[in-house]
């Protein structure tokens, strides 16, 4: 039995948790982070890798702007740029209705200070001469980019540790509760080595598993764990710079300078209870078809691997971010619904602010866990 005491306990070692740990240490706050597996290996490590503001829910844009500051500072902050590149992002239209939706969203995004340009098919092909006949146009955002998801969580973890954070991997949390004025978090690893951690503040950054933490304090998000279906090809001569998405979100595609195409879409049928997320062959074949429809040259490439993981997808596809409504000192930061990669470095900075000052100028109202309390427990529509 090990007893530890700290100021802030973080449950979850994804990018949110590890970035929070680093930003807290920058403010001199003692922190212990507990991660059930390896840092950055769940949704943080298996996602598509897009770092974008284009096409995002408006409620997330302030977080995205804050997060961009962190992305830009990574070489200094983490000693690594995690292969972050500002390549631009194209959200593609495959129908006239898509074009209308893109234009509407471009207009709605306008007050948020980043440029999104509508491109007709001709204008698109003039700049990017490789799209297939199904692509009718796009919303082009030059300031968006992409990075390597596998590097980011571990890089934050290393920097946080170097700054004095205690990060315990292979430490699955078994119970959380109040213990007087503090939180008591208990975890045990495979060898039943129990650790009790006490702290004044608890950060719920447990991703797809976060509802279990929230439930301990009488709160719940309406959220399910879905498994993304990712595909990567062998290296192919590099030509596709921007990251690609589509209206509807059924396929996303990018190419890295080493040449590999990375794409995905859809979800598998694994559940948290089944243990390991898997990739369904029909999803792989289906995504190949959709990717080729966007960029015919992709048909010349060869698939070498697929992967998956678990993402916490909320009913409204918005994250759960902000203070607990039942328990002072508890802050939720989870449920990024498959598009948290760009936001998560910034979320860590905002959580650190919230935890230490009690406030932030980033508007979080629409993201409160309270929004689920009024609704019945429906499952998110597929």
């Amino acid at each position, binding site marked *: 039995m090990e007893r530890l005491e700290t100021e802030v306990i973080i449950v979850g070692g994804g990018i949110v948790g590890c970035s929070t740990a680093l930003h807290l240490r920058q403010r001199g706050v003692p922190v212990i982070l507990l991660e059930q597996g390896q840092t950055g290996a769940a949704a943080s490590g298996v996602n598509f890798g897009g770092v974008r503001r284009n096409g995002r829910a408006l409620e997330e844009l302030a977080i995205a702007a804050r997060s961009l500051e962190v992305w830009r500072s990574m070489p200094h902050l983490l000693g690594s740029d995690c292969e972050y590149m500002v390549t631009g992002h194209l959200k593609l239209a495959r129908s006239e209705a898509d074009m209308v939706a893109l234009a509407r969203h471009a207009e709605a995004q306008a007050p948020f200070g980043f440029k999104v340009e509508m491109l007709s098919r001709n204008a698109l092909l003039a700049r990017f001469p490789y799209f297939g006949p199904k692509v009718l146009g796009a919303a082009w955002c030059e300031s968006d980019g992409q990075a390597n998801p596998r590097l980011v969580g571990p890089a934050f973890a290393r920097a946080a540790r170097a700054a004095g954070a205690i990060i315990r991997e292979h430490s699955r949390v078994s119970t959380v509760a109040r213990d007087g004025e503090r939180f008591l978090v208990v975890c045990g690893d495979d060898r039943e080595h129990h650790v009790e951690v006490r702290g004044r503040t608890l950060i719920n950054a447990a991703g797809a598993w976060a509802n279990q933490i929230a439930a301990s304090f009488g709160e719940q998000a309406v959220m399910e764990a879905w498994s993304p279906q990712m595909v990567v090809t*062998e290296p192919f001569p590099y030509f596709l710079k921007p990251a690609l998405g589509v209206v509807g979100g059924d396929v996303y595609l990018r190419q890295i300078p080493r040449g590999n195409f990375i794409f995905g879409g859809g979800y598998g049928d694994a559940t948290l209870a089944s243990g390991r997320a898997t990739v369904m062959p029909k999803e792989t074949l289906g995504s190949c078809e959709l990717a080729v429809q966007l960029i015919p040259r992709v048909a*010349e490439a060869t698939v070498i691997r697929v992967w998956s993981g678990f993402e916490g997808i909320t009913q409204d596809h918005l994250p759960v971010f902000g203070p607990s409504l039942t328990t002072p000192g508890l802050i939720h930061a989870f449920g990024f619904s498959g598009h948290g990669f760009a936001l998560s470095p910034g979320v860590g900075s905002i959580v650190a602010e919230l935890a230490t000052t009690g406030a932030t100028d980033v508007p979080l109202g629409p993201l409160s866990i309270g929004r689920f309390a009024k609704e019945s427990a429906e499952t998110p529509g597929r």
Partner: protein
Amino acid sequence: MTEGGSLRVLIVGAGPAGVRAAETLLKHGVKPTVVDEAPRHGGQIYRQQPDGFKRPPRTLYGFEAHKATRLHQAFDSLKERIDYRPNTLVWNLWRNVAHVAGPKGTDEIPFDALVLATGAMDRIIPLPGWTLPGVYSLAGSQVALKYQGCAIGQKVVFCGTGPLLYLVAYQYKHAGAEVVAVCDTARLSHAAYLMPGLLAGGSTIFKGMWYAAWLKLHGVKVLNGVTPLRFEGTDRVNALRLITGRGGEKTLACDAVGHGYTLKPETQLADLAGVNFGFDTMTRLWLPAIDEYGRSTVEGVYLAGDGASIAGADAAELRGELAALALLKDHGMAVPNARMVALMRKLGRLSRFREALDRLFPVPATDVHAINDEVVVCRCEAITAGEIRHAAHELDAGEVNRVKALTRAGMGRCQARLCGANIAELVAHARAVPLEAVGRLRGQAPIKPLPIALTRKADALWALNRPDEPWSG
């Protein structure tokens, strides 16, 4: 319990194990589907040459010619009566459905039971220069001769360890290729002590000794107890530099090297099937966990032959038959218990032989600890030993999947077939922990690269290199 007629069994691999499994199932009224990547049955050691080649079995298979011929004929006589799919890759297994890709595109094969007879490939220890043109794997250099009638070069050195070293060198010299030397890391000084075990393999050890003697008699240097240092050359190999058994350095001029350290099982489909793996201290490899009949930890999934663990072609035939009998028994059919007992006894003898052989030709797996930082370990992604060590030391990566995520080692086309064991050795050494503690790389589909064009039925023909058919995209 299903009746023989309706039991759907899929056998992956048409080498010795797969052939005997198919034969056994058919004998008991079960018609299996056999999927094999190669154009013809026989596997690797009994690989058949292409149409139009004329060499007799004696030339191709030497002492094993009669075994090869019997195996080929056994499958020839049954392949019309089963669902046989050559040139077909099982790229994924998903809940009792095999997803395959063949010349006509992709397809699905549902099954009730699965026999994995996926064979083996060379085990490699990287050295400076091992990615140079002219350096081939040992079994690969045998394929060049057996399957294509070619030597891998005009002045060939064979280097590594294992009985295959002597066999391939002999086959090359006998075929008229110039063989400069056979360089075996094994000292063979304790052969006498291992004799009782070696004799359990019947005449096999004598064949090996005969090859070695014949080679020496025909002017081929046979060096034992060597430590290979590097393959020299700029755009192709021109020499092997090594330390001899006596401790001096030696340079062997050559234009090709066949390089390998015994074999290791191809276990990617076992991984996708969800079979448990256990760490084997003798081979320092993670191997699929099976019982003595070939039953895996997954109900309905059986493993046979070198695809389960290296035991050679004779054992593979027996294990294929035994796994098929176990499968039939498990599905409620009457099987001759006496035959199963007899198979087990023969396999017991062969395993004593195999153990002695493994001790005679130990794989110097830990030699990889000594390679320079600049040596490429993952040749698909060109990741060096230094990058792997850096991840293990400076990037807190103590587990191989983490090392892979951070360095890209093992992320390439071959899915760590060549580098996986070496990455683990380097990480364990860097972290000063037991090899088992750094884990094993998780497999993913497709187990071999899957051309996207092949997955798109309309364009499948285009993928068949038909230059006269325009690709419409």
